[in-house]
């Protein structure tokens, strides 16, 4: 902008306020205007300033050269491997690259602003629509071509062509069918209901260690344990539906929502897969017995059948019927009675169905 250009002779006239024009002097500001070539709208730079600018640009381009060399050197000098070495290599490569790019960019900017002319060139615009004669010609040609092709006149040709196109258009979609199997009833079952090799009930094991859980040892009320089915500890497809949270309550803490027949000595197992969109509901607040899903904050009351008390989930976390085997380890007595995880179209009110079956 133009500033500091009205050196008024009289002291009583105040400095100019931004937005007002100078009361005298050239409209484009104080720099001398050198009209070297007589091209309207191209205002050449001041030669002295341009010479100074050239030195600045040259310095910046030299910095880019040096930083570029430093980048290649850093690649050779700094090896990766440990965290510290990788960090050093990252800083060396990144900062030399950044400096090279930054100073090249700055150099070109100074070049444009101080060595190239200032432009105020004007170009005409024309309406986007073509001239009426052109449009008329195109229309005539189109109609002529359509007539020549016989597409309009020969009905059978036209109809069979459309007929021919339809199945070909569908073919790519048909080809996609083998992307995956049909869902069937897969979403209604988990591996907790699958028979084991030796025919014994499936044990609950601790996620990560794979240790079976002796009911008598899991006795700290308030504790929460992430549990997976024995034999499927690393099967991600199985874990995506079958992972459990295991909690222990004092008998007086459990409310009517929890099915006591499916507990063992105050130990309750709920599906860990949130009924909203399937994140693991992994957070537990001991004092309130609230299970919280960290994704969208659906909150379930663990003491009351994991019913929803806040958030977008619409259904409680399903409860797994558990018991103990002859050695005292926790086992699944059956599969979940309702599908676990997010809702889906074919699901229906599985909870009501389960209640009816029981009654």
């Amino acid at each position: 902008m133009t500033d500091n250009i009205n050196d008024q002779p009289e002291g009583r006239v105040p400095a100019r306020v931004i937005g007002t024009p100078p009361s005298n002097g050239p409209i484009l500001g104080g720099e001398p205007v050198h009209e070297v070539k007589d091209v309207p709208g191209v205002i050449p730079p001041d030669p002295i300033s341009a010479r100074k600018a050239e030195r600045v640009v040259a310095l910046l381009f030299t910095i880019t050269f040096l930083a570029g060399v430093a980048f290649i050197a850093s690649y050779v000098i700094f090896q990766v491997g440990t965290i510290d070495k990788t960090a050093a290599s990252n800083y060396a490569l990144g900062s030399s690259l950044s400096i090279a790019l930054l100073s090249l960019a700055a150099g070109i900017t100074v070049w444009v602003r101080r060595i190239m002319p200032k432009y105020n060139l004007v170009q005409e615009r024309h309406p986007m629509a073509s001239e009426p004669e052109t449009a008329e010609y195109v229309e005539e040609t189109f109609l002529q071509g359509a007539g020549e092709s016989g597409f309009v006149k020969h009905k059978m040709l036209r109809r069979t062509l459309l007929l021919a196109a339809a199945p070909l258009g569908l073919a790519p979609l048909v080809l996609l069918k083998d992307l995956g199997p049909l869902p069937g009833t897969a979403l209604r079952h988990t591996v907790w209901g699958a028979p084991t090799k030796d025919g014994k009930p499936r044990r609950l094991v601790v996620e990560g260690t794979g240790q079976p859980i002796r009911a008598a040892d899991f006795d700290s009320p308030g504790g929460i344990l992430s549990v997976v089915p024995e034999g499927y500890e690393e099967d991600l497809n199985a874990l995506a539906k079958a992972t459990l949270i295991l909690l222990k309550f004092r008998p007086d803490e459990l409310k009517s929502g929890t099915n006591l027949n499916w507990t063992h000595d105050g130990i309750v197992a709920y599906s860990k897969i949130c009924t909203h969109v399937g994140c693991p509901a992994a957070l537990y607040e001991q004092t309130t017995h609230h299970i919280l899903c960290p994704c969208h904050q659906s909150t379930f009351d663990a003491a009351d059948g994991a019913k929803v008390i806040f958030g977008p989930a619409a259904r409680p976390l399903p409860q797994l019927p558990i018991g103990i085997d002859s050695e005292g380890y926790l086992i699944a007595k059956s599969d979940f009675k309702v599908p676990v995880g997010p809702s889906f179209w074919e699901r229906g009110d599985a909870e009501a169905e389960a209640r009816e079956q029981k009654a």
Partner: protein
Amino acid sequence: MDTTPKPIAGVSTFLDDRLGAGSFLKRNMRKIFPDHWSFLLGEIALYSFIILLLTGTFLTLWFKPSMGEVVYSGSYQPLVGVKMSEAYASALNISFDVRGGLLIRQIHHWAALLFIAGMMVHMLRVFFTGAYRKPRELNWLIGVGLLTLALLEGLTGYSLPDDLLSGAGLRITEGVMLGIPVVGTYLTFLLFGGEYPGHDVISRFFTIHILLIPGILLALISAHMILMWVQKHTQMPGTGRSEKNVVGAPFYPAFMAKAGAFTLFTFAVIALLGTFAQINPIWLFGPYTPADISAGSQPDFYMGFLEGSLRLMPSWEINFLDHTVSLSVLIPALVPLGIVMTGLALYPFIEQWVTGDRREHHIADRPRNNPHRTAIGFTGITFYGVLWLLGANDEISANFHISLYETTIVGRFAIFIVPAIAYFVTYRICIGLQRSDQAMLSHGVESGVIKRLPHGEYIEVHTPPMEDIADHIRGKKEIPVVESGEDTDGIPPKGARTALGRLRSKMSQAYGTDHIPLEEGHGHEEHAAIGAGDHSDGHKDGH
């Protein structure tokens, strides 16, 4: 330079003889590009895209898009011996065993964020200045398509490293897909090749992420550029600028050099971020398992509004005839995105219908001069903003010690109230700014000179504004209003007789009526020019 250097002359003659390149260059070398800072916003997105292509290609040289299980044996000690997918292992390998790999990975991620952020602010610029109007509606639609594809591109890319955080995003995608009525389970099983997570999704997302979507993006971006080139860029109002011309700098050499410098600046900033601002440290998250999650997980910023809308939703679900419609998933996942994207795509055409304006527009509006459009824009921004903020309500709750549930409940009301307030406030601000423009043109600018009149009254002397600023303000154009007036017999015009027609003329009236028309130079006493007589060349006011 008086003669063209031989090598250049040789090559150009060769090309001209074969392609006739001369006539193309004759028309385009000195193509004029108008200047304004806001015109650079779209360029940020464009240059980020170029950086994404370059760095992405580098990453594919080492990345293995496979969900096959391997035992990690690379340089990162804490995970040695851990079973993980080949995808995650190769992402770790890029980070710790390839020199510059971590840098390029971080640059790629930052460039992706800047790509989408650049598109968003560019789109807001185009919206608020009305640069989407005829003849640019097609380019606007291409832009909406680009933004949608970019979000999808981000989602697929984010899922590739197969770490615990990216897997959580994938799981949410699956949960939302399952909720789609009738076809949800089928789509999910097709995408994942069976049950979630299966063994196919990473390699499928890889193909979508590096081939399918970038190919479409490249084609659409080229079309976007060609249309911009053919239609010539819009310009801001100002001295010597009209609907029939373009004023600015020529493509060769000035704009070319500026664009080159800006590419480098963009790259430099992204490189600085990639060097010093750690992003997505996948080695801290561990390999994906559907059984685990870390608290405080946040998606990339552009997915935050979807996360927020999912969190905001009350638990609504409909069961009928053995089927389930889970509104608590479908509404938040589809409605806000649908409102924003459909609204954007339709806006040029709705505006045209309301105003009946079929003219070409090449002078950009100042946002204040179309207060209803600007207010609608800010309504959209606050709607998006509230959802986005709610996507981080756990962080807000933890950092500001507010109850988590209270943030959600406040959000459920705020999503309706705040955009409404934003509409009203923006509208009033626009009207206020128009008033100040009007005041500047008619009364001039405060000069800071206090003058005492002969009868003792003190006034502040006003001077007319600088010509270029005044011309900028005078660039305001009236918004057409469709005819709704009844004729002499009290019969409304044909189009305005139906209920829709009446609605249209009412909306048009509200949208187009100029409450603050510009008028110049009706003077008052205080208009005495600066020390009349002190400066013979001082600007006199219009009275």
